């Protein structure tokens, strides 16, 4: 892998940038691999990278039905944080955040991880206490968290409506200073480039149409580019995990829903943090290009179409303008949708399955992007060792049978309620 740096840029500038190598190869699939990862998004590529880097497994194919990073990796609102309260989530997301902190250097690809801080606004005494409860769990587990009062929030987010006579006045907020945003596409590209350099075959335009199972063991996949054998098969196909599970004969605790996101036209810097509302579901930040990036709830009905409808956009914009009334004359530039697996407790699944050699990484609900490095890291561990790491040992399918669910919202077994 030719290293990127200001010096390599300068060197290549002299030759008109004609000599940059391809960031990754476009190989044809081989007949067999040690490991097949289905899904060439951030999670799948990160899994391949950590399998190679941490576990010495390099005979790997990553199969992507479209273009790599084209699923939710390239469709999310780019928020990275580790502010979770429940065992299972807390340390997993923190491990992921720590990997983010060194990711640009590790991959030699600038993923522009910007630790600008995430504030969750509290609008009632109950919410204030709940955020303190969560912040305390974080602090006790060694994670940064601060509780801000209203004036401190107002100082950090000057355009936020913090007036006491607001419909839902801001009482304060939970701040995670190390949280922030990253450049989503770069994450897929950075992992792809590094995985490729270890010899991982990244095969685009290759859709998996079937999982071959013999005697309770996964032995290969059928694809639009032919059958491919493998000793181990892992899926990382946000939004389609239930569908892929069904190919292997598994009934999974998932529903697939569409989540929309949107950006405004680019503006000069006016919002330095990521801010989430505590009234309605909404999260807002400003990209380095200047666009306000925001989103909210699901459309709330199952769908595999990567298209949403207008009522959700209206609600998200209503919430956003209630928080930031002066953005009224700013324009919405673009909106889009991505399909996501909603699990029955709102937490992910990274585990072995009842089928030997078949592993699942899915159920990321609203928040798979921030988990990308952590998920790849523990999924690689799980596949390589055929058993979970401590960090993902709670993210099992079994938990729904035993009742050991990880339900941060306490919403129960309704997928779209999380």
């Amino acid at each position, binding site marked *: 892998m030719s290293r*990127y*740096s200001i010096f390599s*840029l300068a060197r290549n*500038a002299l030759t*008109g940038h004609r000599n940059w190598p*391809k*960031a990754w190869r476009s190989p044809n699939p081989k007949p067999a691999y040690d490991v097949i990862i289905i899904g060439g998004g951030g999670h799948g590529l990160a899994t391949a990278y950590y399998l190679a880097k941490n576990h010495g497994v390099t005979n790997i194919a990553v199969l992507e039905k479209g*273009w790599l990073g084209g699923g939710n990796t390239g469709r999310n609102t780019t928020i990275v944080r580790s502010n979770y309260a429940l065992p299972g989530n807390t*340390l997993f997301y923190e491990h992921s955040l720590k990997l983010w902190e*060194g990711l640009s250097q590790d991959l030699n690809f*600038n993923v522009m*991880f910007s630790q600008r801080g995430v504030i969750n606004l509290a609008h009632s005494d*109950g919410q*204030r206490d709940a955020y*303190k409860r969560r912040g*305390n*769990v974080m*602090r006790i*587990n*060694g994670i940064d968290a601060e*509780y801000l009062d209203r004036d401190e929030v107002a100082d950090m987010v000057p355009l936020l409506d913090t007036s006491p006579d*607001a419909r839902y006045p801001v009482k304060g907020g939970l701040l995670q200073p190390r949280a922030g945003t990253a*450049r989503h*596409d770069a994450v897929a*590209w950075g992992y792809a480039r590094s995985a490729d350099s270890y010899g991982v075959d990244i095969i685009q335009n290759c859709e998996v149409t079937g999982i071959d199972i013999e005697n309770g063991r996964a032995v290969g996949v059928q694809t639009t580019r032919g059958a491919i054998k493998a000793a181990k098969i892992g899926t990382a196909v946000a939004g389609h995990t239930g569908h892929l599970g069904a190919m292997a004969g598994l009934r999974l605790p998932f529903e697939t829903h569409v989540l929309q996101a949107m950006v*405004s*036209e*680019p*503006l*000069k*810097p*006016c919002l330095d943090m990521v801010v989430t509302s505590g*009234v309605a579901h909404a999260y807002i930040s400003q990209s*380095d*290009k*200047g666009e306000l990036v925001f989103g909210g709830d699901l459309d709330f009905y199952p769908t595999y179409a990567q*298209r949403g*409808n*207008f009522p959700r956009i209206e609600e998200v914009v*209503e919430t*956003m*303008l*209630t928080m930031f009334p*002066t*953005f009224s*004359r*700013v324009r*919405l*530039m*673009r*909106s*889009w949708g991505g399909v996501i697996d909603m699990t029955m407790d709102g937490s992910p699944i990274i585990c072995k399955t009842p089928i030997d050699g078949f592993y699942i990484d899915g159920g990321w609900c609203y928040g798979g992007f921030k988990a990308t490095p952590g998920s790849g890291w523990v999924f690689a561990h799980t596949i390589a060792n055929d058993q979970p*790491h*401590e960090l993902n040992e709670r993210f099992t399918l079994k*938990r729904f049978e035993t*009742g*050991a669910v990880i*339900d941060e919202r*306490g919403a*129960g077994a309704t997928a779209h309620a999380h």
Partner: protein
Amino acid sequence: MTGQVFRNGAGGRIDRTVPLSFTFDGKNYQGFQGDTLASALLANGVRVVGRSFKYHRPRGILGAGFEEPNALVQLGDGARTEPNTQATRVELFDGLTATSQNRWPSLQFDISAINGLFHRLLPAGFYYKTFMAPANLWMTYEKIIRRAAGMGRAPTQMDPDIYARRFAHCNVLVIGGGPAGVSAALAAGQSGARVILAEDNPQLSVSETELADMDNVTVLTRTMAAAYYDHNTLILSERIADHKPAPAPFETRQRMWKVRAQQVVLATGALERPLVFPNNDRPGVMLASAAQCYAADFAVRAGNQAVVFTNNDSAYGAARDMKAAGIDIAAIIDTRPEISDSTRELATNTKVLTGHAIIDVASGRGGATRGVTLKAIHPDTGAPKGSPIDIACDVVAMSGGWNPTIHLFSQSKGKIKYDGARAAFVPGQSFQQERSIGAANGTFDHEACIIEGHNAGAAAARDVGFDAPDARTSPSGIPPAAQPLWSAPTGAKRFVDFQNDVTADDIGLAYREGYQSVEHLKRYTTLGMGTDQGRTSNVNGLAIMADHRRLDIPEVGTTTFRPPFSPITLGGIAGWHTGQNFEATRQSAMSAWHEAQGATFSNAGLWRRPEYYPRTGMTPAEAVHHEARHVREKVGVVDVSTLGKIDVQGRDALEFLSRVYINNLTKLPVGKCRYGVMLREDGFVFDDGTITRLAEMRFLVTTTTTHAGPVMTHLEYLAQVQWPELDVHLLSVSEDWAGIAIAGPNSRTLLSQLFQDVDFANEAFPFMGYRETNAGGVPVRLFRISFSGEHAYELNVPADYGLNFWTALLETGADLDVIPYGTEAMNILRIEKGHVTGAELNGRVTADDLGFAGMMSKLKPFVGQVLARRDALTAKGRRQLVGLVPADGETPIPAGAQILADPDAPPPEFTPAAILGEVTSNCYSPALGHPIGLGLVEDGSDRHGDTLYAHSPITSETVAITLTNPVFVDPAGGRLHG
């Protein structure tokens, strides 16, 4: 006319009798009614209107409408300022002010233009390759990058304007008021169908009086179709007052229409493509159709001397109109080796150079165009050859062919296809009830557009049952105008995306580095990601990539067009549903009274509830403690109207309730209440409340305030979907009844005085009893239930009478020293009694966790019973409800603290910290005279008496606490029953 040196004395659609003054970058200019800001700037000879995003190169006006990537201005100032506004779509008004963007300190001298000198170091995606070392400096780099990026400035004052939203339904919706659209609307309108015709411009391009006279046709001008959603729902954005300095008082600025159309006709036209050649971004280089539009519609000469540069026939018409407006056409440069005689006829007396191309554009003062250099080109490769020819000019009018405006078609889920002859993507198979016509369908002939429009309008009307006029036949098969793609194969700074400064070299680099799929190309180079959403760049970019990959354009693919078509204001989307109107506010019948007493309020869902009533000479905390103490000593009344109330009736009402509550209800007689708990299907606690048997087959159940909606949905789902055989009917009556709790030792005396016909003696009306009476004909429901643990009642009266009974209680009880209390005191009273609410009912607890195991009937099945038996819900080590008191008897227990045995334990690596539980509620107890709390702690029921720590690092508090029984006051229940 002073200053408008590029304006002709006659012609155009402007009204010269209405001169308008405006400023650009602080300088005064004049224009006319009917001008756009862009046409007025050109009339005044203003060439440089902005700076580009990355290299900060000076930029001029490229287009005349939606396609404009360069001329984005900050419109107005103060509260009405508006960033990134396309000058080509701003209607000029008197007093308009506009400022250029993305430059510092001034448009003429922009310090960041130095980026242009270092452009070799800044190829596409350069930021992915650097700024990585040292690791902690990215935040510093980022600050600089953010400051340089962005474009306009967001307003920082409240928007003074009003926005409205409106639903509309119609038989046929026509988008686009050009020849095709008007023709379609007319045909549909003649059939009697209800028609809406939407046009973005201030007027239709064809004046059509017949249309205006039809009652069944609504013509919306200044209205842009922004989005095409499922089930033929379109979003239209109407600009009602944007062409004026400010809306009139109470006038709406913009109205968003949500139109459900049975049939849709898209007549959205086509947009011209630029050509890609070196320095094609110099101010003065513009689309031929734009130069033509300024000449014909605004009587504005885009310059004095023009070179027309084209690869197709349409620019010849543009040249003709420019010439007619007085622009000297120095030459028409055509990349095609040959042109037809009819085309050549259009350019009589004009020099035409076929088989040539511009290889450079020279710039003069301020960067504006002052000439071009041409070369002959190789007929196959397009490579320049031979000796250069220089031509002086101040305008280059270019045409790279036309893209049908298929954005809405694509949004509708229609399949687009590539048409090689037109070198453009055109609509293919429709997915919804939709027809694309005219230029939007790749039909560029005027007469053919009109016929296509007529036929589509008539067919659409016919499809929804109207008797529509007959189809007309096209004069003959008009062959599509050939317009082969061309771009200069070499040369520096050949811009493809003007707004984002993406050049042909950048696309080459993306190709070499493997970012070859359309989406990778877009995302790596930012091609087409600007506010113009690639209207002028996408197809050229694709063509260049296709060339590198030696594929046909359709094999490289196309991108999805995402809503909105062109940016729309957030204010317009939200309408009036923001601020105080963000959500409905639910008020109880007594809200105004609470407000008049100066109560502070908190939000509970949509409800506003009084927290406490201020008292002179007392701090808020003292006032709250006073209220709580007073209830325990005397009597208080509290507004509990917000509790959910569900009337359950039917022969199987009892059976139904037995299935949904854990409690055994078979022995519940008429006239009695019971405390009940509901589980979710997954076995965790859902909600609690009371069940009162009003009659043999009628019950009233209550829910917590926040769960009223979810509980109703849960019960209705079971009743309607899973158990339709049960005769049970549910009705939410939460808002029909006002609720007042009367609590304290004097509550019985107070109620006895008010309702003298009711026997309040303990035997006649015991704890958990229910009585009905009436007062002056108003029905009254009395429940002897208690949240505070005191002798207490709850009273329900029809909501309209709530305030009467509230004041009657206060007046009647004056001698008994009755006071009102709020939710703060209520919260203290329930903590003292160990009653659970929100933080304890967190959706993760079992009935046993809360000490409700005894209520779970073993004699009947109920919802949640089976999954509540799962291992994790019954294992040891679950967190159970406990009381908490500070070990020192006085230090407050921190809200939101976690409970641990060792607060000094170091943070863990992979195994979660040993947290035993959490503080769920905390307060100072006036009854006990010290702080107390409730918590959920691992095996808490077995730990009463143990000392642990309530640890709150986030507030730097750590307090030793002793675990106790959660019922602090009157554990034996003497007060309740007495």
